[in-house]
């Protein structure tokens, strides 16, 4: 299983990696902003099983990245992982095409549950 973690904080990427590694058989790719994420996606023809995206990042933020991915790819599951917790933000992300939404701070269990849920739904829809 291939996961792409997009977050400008290396610490947060490491925390998510440590948590999601417990799923087993996970191959991680990382990017620190939207621009870098688009390059990683372009360089990975096999695609990703899930892309986790932070909202507030320098250079290109998460919502712009979601729009850019969805311009050409309607299938790859996308999940926002962010401190942005207002209903209006969640709705904006859903409109842009995210499959799920996790709010920081999170417990490892909460993140695992959201990721597992997103992967299961994507698998059922395939």
């Amino acid at each position: 299983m291939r996961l792409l973690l997009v977050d400008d904080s290396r610490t947060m990427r490491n925390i998510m990696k440590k948590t999601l590694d417990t799923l087993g058989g996970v191959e991680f790719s990382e990017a620190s902003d939207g621009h870098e994420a688009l390059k990683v996606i372009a360089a990975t023809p096999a695609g990703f099983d899930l892309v986790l995206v932070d909202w507030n990042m320098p250079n290109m933020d998460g919502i712009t990245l979601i729009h850019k991915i969805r311009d050409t790819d309607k299938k790859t599951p996308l999940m926002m992982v962010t401190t942005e917790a207002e209903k209006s933000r969640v709705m904006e992300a859903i409109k842009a095409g995210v499959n799920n939404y996790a709010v920081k701070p999170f417990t490892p269990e909460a993140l695992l549950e959201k990721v597992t849920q997103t992967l299961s739904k994507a698998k059922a829809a395939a």
Partner: protein
Amino acid sequence: MSVIEAPKPAASPINSKLIMPFVNSVRSVFSTMVNVPTTLGKPFLKKDPCPSYDVSSIIGFSGDITGCVVVSLQMKAAEQLVSAFAGAAIESSSPDFADAIGELANMIAGAAKKDLGHAARISIPSVIIGTGHLIARLSDVPCIVIPCQTPSGDFTVEVSIKPVNQST
């Protein structure tokens, strides 16, 4: 007949609607992701432009809220708290140190933003490390300090924000 009115008590500069979201977000971040017991003291007004401690992470607010929030930590506390947060030892000389301090401040400000009741945006955090640094805040916005104690050492959350188009 003249009436002498009793002087009105001065309005408190501490607006609980702006402070309580940060009290709650500190509790939430530290209990969820740092797993270090944290005791919060009574918020107080501060006039000194120096942050309380040696390590500061600053988050700017814009939109319907203006100003900034500073998370200021004792160096020893900062090293121990970011290590607990990251799940691995991080020394202040590591580039991951500022990254982790910034992310803690980002989560505190982000979690509080939801409960402020205004459409606001927060900036990417900036981190300053060094004794005696100064932070220039908006002159017309009071700075309210939330003192926090942990077994690793102390830190403060210094809230200096106000709703736009509203005097303090």
